[in-house]
């Protein structure tokens, strides 16, 4: 079967939010303002773990220009969270990380709000701060959540004291297989926390009219934000409307319900619109959302011919202070410790531990980049042990059609090996390079997530149309591409189709921008809605043209008789005389069958629907005197099924690779012994700049996949950030002769590894 590239002309397709973005007329949340609006500021905890003994806001409330100061006492006594509800809007009696909110102030302006925050008096009894997330699972460690046993899903998650979640992947008898292996290879890797760092700091504005609140928020998940407000303020979801103006990036960091509840409560108390805009400093330390630090211990039994007979692994993940939406991380990490390889037996144990660090939650492919970075270095170590070329070892052991994964899922067609072949070819693997340069490769996988979605499509009387979708555009362009798909179904011009989106009162529930699933699920719904309108148009045209329905086609903005284009009625003529509107969800793909009876902590990640698979190959240059690594070239080969919108899909790879380079070399949050961030700013937390970014070559090796999404497509948003760090690590090791086992691989760590290797 040939590679699918959709046939629509792409060159002149410009995203419909583009004009506003290049002219400055497009508005983001912080660009909005309302008559009489107040400025919001939070009072954060002064300790990362402490008992709150007294909060006195009287002086702050008495300050002229202060409209409201609220604390836990001013909102319902309700906990919120994802799989575990473990958090209050405002600290009740314990603060568990430095970004915990004690109180919120609404005031006339910034200066008064800041002064009011400083006038709030808080007394604490400091408690031992547990920043070491591995030590936190020690039975003697103090409890971070004393009431963990009452959590409703504690059993299902395998919770135990400070371990929020425990998952295993077990296949066969790994101990017995290990005993018979020709070689046993081990590796131990650690990773620092990483931040999402969207360039837009988050902003929230709330305005009440009667009992109904409208909240403009820079969220990736408006429906989750709505549910969070309704839960924490104990009001119906129908009284909460979330509107997302243009969203200035998210990368997962703006997933989950975060600050909409605080600002809604504050606006109600202030009796006026209230606006919160985060500083960059807050964007680092105060959000309950970063990529988790990890300890990754891997052990593989391998035969001399490269057959992987056993994998044992122990993973420890830093959940930070609260669950948020990251309750599934232990199992997802465990799947990545197996990777897209055929391994006879598996025994992986994965622990998701509470600590007094900032909460971790989904950042672009949660858990995957770190575990992939470790596993792919481990694969190179295995290859070295048996004297086999790393590419040859992978070619022998990667999954392919008919192969069985770690949970005995049997794969349909999958372009895993094709991606390896293509990446190796693009990078020129095997070429002679200067002795300070080398090439490294890494492979990885990521599932598609099937989620309910719903959409409407309606025709306007002039023949233009409007899509109504709950999908969230975070910048990738996946919502912006919807008019193109509908236009193709109806023979219309995409420019004639507008989108009503990011308004929870308008469209049915949608998961929002997370899990690389907007095209997979939301476009499925939009196409189903358009299909209903297509049927309505065919009915109306058959009557108008006195023609048989099956003889008609929709092309060029008209419905015409096939072969007789002159016998036609335009969509505009039909639309003017009737009401054409459709709704749809489309059939939800089923998760592939697995045999995972031996696994505990099963949360659905054991089955990888329509896996997106990929290989990155990276050429690096290492300065041995300083440890500075320069990325010379990246080749990225991906199977994301059929590529529907190349400019969007390529954009995800370019951006994901560069984010992966940051994770590899410079991005890491440094914590002090109490879990407080030491580099919460862009001067000390370094993103990749334009002059650091290398040339990136992209290849799409995807083919039609039976269980894929619309038109044979799979997701693409998250995968490009997954394998880059692993490929860079292997390239560095190929130059300096030894692996760098801490992420990010900063110049200091590379230099130290060089020195260690020389000893």
């Amino acid at each position, binding site marked *: 079967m040939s590679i699918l590239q959709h046939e629509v002309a792409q060159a002149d397709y410009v995203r419909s939010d583009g004009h506003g973005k290049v002219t400055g007329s497009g508005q983001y949340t912080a660009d909005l303002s309302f008559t009489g609006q107040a400025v919001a500021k939070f009072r954060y905890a002064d300790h990362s773990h402490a008992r709150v003994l007294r909060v006195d806001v009287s002086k702050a409330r008495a300050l002229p220009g202060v409209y409201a100061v609220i604390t836990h006492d001013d909102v319902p006594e309700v906990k919120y969270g994802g799989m575990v509800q473990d958090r209050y809007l405002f600290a009740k009696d314990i603060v568990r990380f430095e970004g915990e909110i004690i109180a919120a102030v609404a005031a006339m302006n910034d200066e008064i709000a800041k002064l009011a925050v400083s006038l709030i008096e808080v007394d604490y009894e400091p408690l031992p701060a547990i920043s070491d997330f591995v030590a936190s699972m020690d039975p003697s460690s103090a409890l971070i959540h004393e009431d963990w046993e009452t959590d409703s899903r504690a059993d299902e998650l395998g919770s135990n004291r400070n371990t929020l979640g425990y998952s295993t992947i077990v296949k066969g008898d790994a101990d017995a297989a290990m005993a018979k292996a020709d070689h046993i290879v081990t590796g131990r890797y650690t990773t620092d926390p990483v931040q999402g760092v969207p360039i837009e700091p988050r902003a929230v504005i709330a305005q009440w009219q009667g009992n109904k609140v409208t909240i403009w928020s820079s969220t990736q998940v408006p429906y989750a934000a709505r549910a969070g407000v309704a839960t924490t303020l104990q009001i119906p979801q129908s009284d909460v409307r979330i509107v997302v103006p243009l969203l200035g990036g998210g990368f997962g960091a703006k997933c989950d319900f975060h600050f909409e509840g605080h600002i809604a409560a504050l606006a109600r108390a202030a009796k006026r619109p209230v606006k919160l805009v985060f500083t960059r400093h807050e964007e680092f330390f105060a959000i309950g959302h970063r990529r988790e630090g990890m300890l990754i211990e891997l052990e593989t039994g391998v035969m001399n011919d490269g057959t992987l007979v056993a994998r044992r692994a122990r993973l420890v993940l830093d959940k930070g202070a609260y669950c948020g939406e990251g309750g599934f991380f232990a199992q997802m990490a465990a799947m990545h410790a197996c990777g897209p390889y055929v391994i006879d037996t598996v025994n992986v144990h994965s622990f998701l531990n509470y600590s007094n660090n900032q909460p971790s939650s989904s950042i672009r492919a949660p858990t995957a980049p770190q575990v992939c970075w470790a596993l792919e270095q481990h694969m190179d170590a295995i290859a070295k042990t048996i004297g086999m070329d790393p590419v040859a070892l992978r070619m022998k052991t990667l999954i392919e059609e008919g192969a069985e994964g770690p949970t005995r899922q049997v794969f349909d067609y999958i372009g895993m090996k094709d991606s390896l072949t293509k990446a190796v070819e693009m990078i020129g693997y095997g070429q002679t390079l200067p002795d300070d340069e080398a090439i490294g490769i890494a492979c990885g996988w990521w599932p598609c997530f099937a989620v309910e979605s719903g959409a409407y499509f309606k025709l306007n009387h002039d023949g233009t149309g409007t899509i109504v979708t709950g999908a969230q555009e975070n910048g990738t362009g996946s919502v912006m591409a919807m008019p193109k798909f509908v236009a193709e179904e109806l023979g219309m011009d995409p420019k004639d189709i507008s989108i009503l989106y990011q308004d929870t009162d308008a469209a049915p529930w949608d998961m929002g921008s997370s899990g690389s699933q907007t095209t997979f699920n939301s476009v499925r719904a939009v196409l189903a809605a358009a299909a209903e309108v297509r049927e309505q148009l065919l009915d109306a045209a058959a009557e108008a043209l006195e023609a048989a329905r099956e003889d008609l086609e929709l092309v060029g903005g008209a419905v015409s008789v096939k072969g007789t284009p002159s016998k036609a009625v335009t969509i505009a003529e039909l639309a003017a005389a009737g009401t054409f509107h459709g709704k749809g969800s489309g059939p939800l793909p089923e998760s592939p069958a697995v045999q995972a009876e031996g696994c505990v902590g099963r949360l659905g990640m054991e089955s990888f629907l329509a896996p997106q698979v990929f290989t990155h190959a990276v050429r690096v240059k290492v300065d041995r005197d300083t440890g500075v690594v320069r990325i010379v070239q990246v080749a990225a080969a991906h199977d994301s099924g059929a590529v529907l919108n190349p400019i969007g899909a390529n*954009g995800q790879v370019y951006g994901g690779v560069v984010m992966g380079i940051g994770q590899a070399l410079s991005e890491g949050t440094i914590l002090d012994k109490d879990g407080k961030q030491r580099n919460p700013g862009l001067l000390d937390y370094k993103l990749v700049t334009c002059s650091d970014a290398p040339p990136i070559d992209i290849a799409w090796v995807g083919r039609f996949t039976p269980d894929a999404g619309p038109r044979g497509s799979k997701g693409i948003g998250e995968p490009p950030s997954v394998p880059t760090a692993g490929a860079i690590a292997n390239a560095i090791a190929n130059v300096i002769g030894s692996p760098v086992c801490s992420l990010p691989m900063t110049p200091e760590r590379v230099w130290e590894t060089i020195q260690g290797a020389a000893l």
Partner: protein
Amino acid sequence: MKNETSLTVNGMTYPVAIDSHATLLRAVRDDIGLTGTKEGCDDSECGACMMLIDGKPVNSCSYLAMQAVGRSLTTVEGLSSGEELSPLQQAFLTAGGVQCGFCTPGMLISATALLAATPHPTEEEVRIGLSGNLCRCTGYDGIVKAVLQVSSK
């Protein structure tokens, strides 16, 4: 203390009363109401707040509004003429230089300044010229391509 003065932005002069300590970014966004220029870090690290002051790119978050009195300011709103997009704005869209768009105004300002100073830059010159503007979405590929496309015409 408020100073009664005026600022000239995109060819139009605005009478304004601005605090001595107000940044140019605040004055243009809050007092004049041109919100196209963004605040990303308030620390001259991200470049989202870039404006041209007498043709030179400046991080307006770290520049006092009073210093800009009597100078000619250009923001992203001043790059197009009427409804017509500038070649750079158009190229950013067609080359994939825009995703979330939050860095775009500052990026366009820096690119405009770069091309004014160096009409035919090499790729390396473009990459160095834009290295004061952070983008988290595009990997810079579409942005660099857009600038090179415009400069080669």
